[in-house]
């Protein structure tokens, strides 16, 4: 087993944990962290599978760099929104679905 496959395998596990983490907790910070774990898992799979033969592959590495920046941007927006929500409602969780009907 190459290091690439170890990365890829742990990436897959991280991804699954991340998905469960986005779905289960109600605290927004945890959800956002879980999303980052999920993203990191996907990045690990991308890089790990790419170089499972042992030689480094610059293409997935560049893609992951792009992906990380995108994830940073999304996380920043999510945190800003979560903070605004906390300022408005005093709670760090999503209000129950606004059933206006």
């Amino acid at each position, binding site marked *: 087993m190459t290091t690439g*496959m170890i990365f*890829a*395998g742990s990436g*897959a*596990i991280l*991804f*699954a*944990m991340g*998905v*469960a983490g986005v*779905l*289960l907790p109600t605290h927004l910070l945890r959800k956002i962290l879980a999303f980052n774990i999920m993203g990191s898992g996907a990045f690990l*799979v991308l890089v790990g*599978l790419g170089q*499972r*033969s042992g*030689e*480094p*592959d*610059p*293409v997935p*590495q*560049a*893609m992951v*760099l*792009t992906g990380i*920046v*995108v994830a*940073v*941007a*999304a996380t*920043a*927006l999510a945190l*800003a*929104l979560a*903070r*605004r929500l906390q*300022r408005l409602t005093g709670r760090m969780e999503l209000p129950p679905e606004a059933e206006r009907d």
Partner: protein
Amino acid sequence: MKRIAGAAVMLSAGILAMALVVSMFELPPPAVRLPQMVQEKLPQSGVEHPVTAVLLNFRGYDTLLEVAVLLLALLGMLAGERPRPAAPDRAPTDPVLPGLTRFLVPLMGLTAVYLLWAGAHRPGGAFQAAAVLAAAAVLLHLTDLLPAWTSLRLRLRTGLAGGLLVFITVAAWLLGEGRLLQYPVAHAGSLILFIEVALTISLGLILAGLFLFLPDDDERRR
């Protein structure tokens, strides 16, 4: 009810992880060998480092969109915020922290310049440099040396959007020469560096802005 749902989610996640790992180990070697192609075309890319070559030349278009994503995150954040009065300048209270910061910030600036320059032939580049710059700004803010940003003046707006504008303009100009983002081999290196410099400044400002535009948590100060 909630516990059953939780257990179901955990179980499904476990199954997903299992399936993913097992299927990965059955993969045959890929049919397409991109690393070789990257190596072959590297001389024409204008940079020596393969990752930078992919990032800014072969797949430079991804990077163009990605810069837009960052700016967009800042816009999304600012869009819903109410304009607020400028916070009064606060004098630094703690003597140690500002001193350290004053020492660190120039070093960080230097690091950023190095990272930018290094990107052409080893790991590094505009994003890394920008991140360091932004970190310096955050540090300054946390030590009360830099007040939070409250207004979006023309100069700041230009700075935030400048990198993207330069990138788009170069892309459009290159379109006239051939293809979107097709750098002429002779000028590829310098054009990429030009874009990287512009990006470093703008991305640094954007990343810093993601923090400095946030409304103050007044509790911390009280």
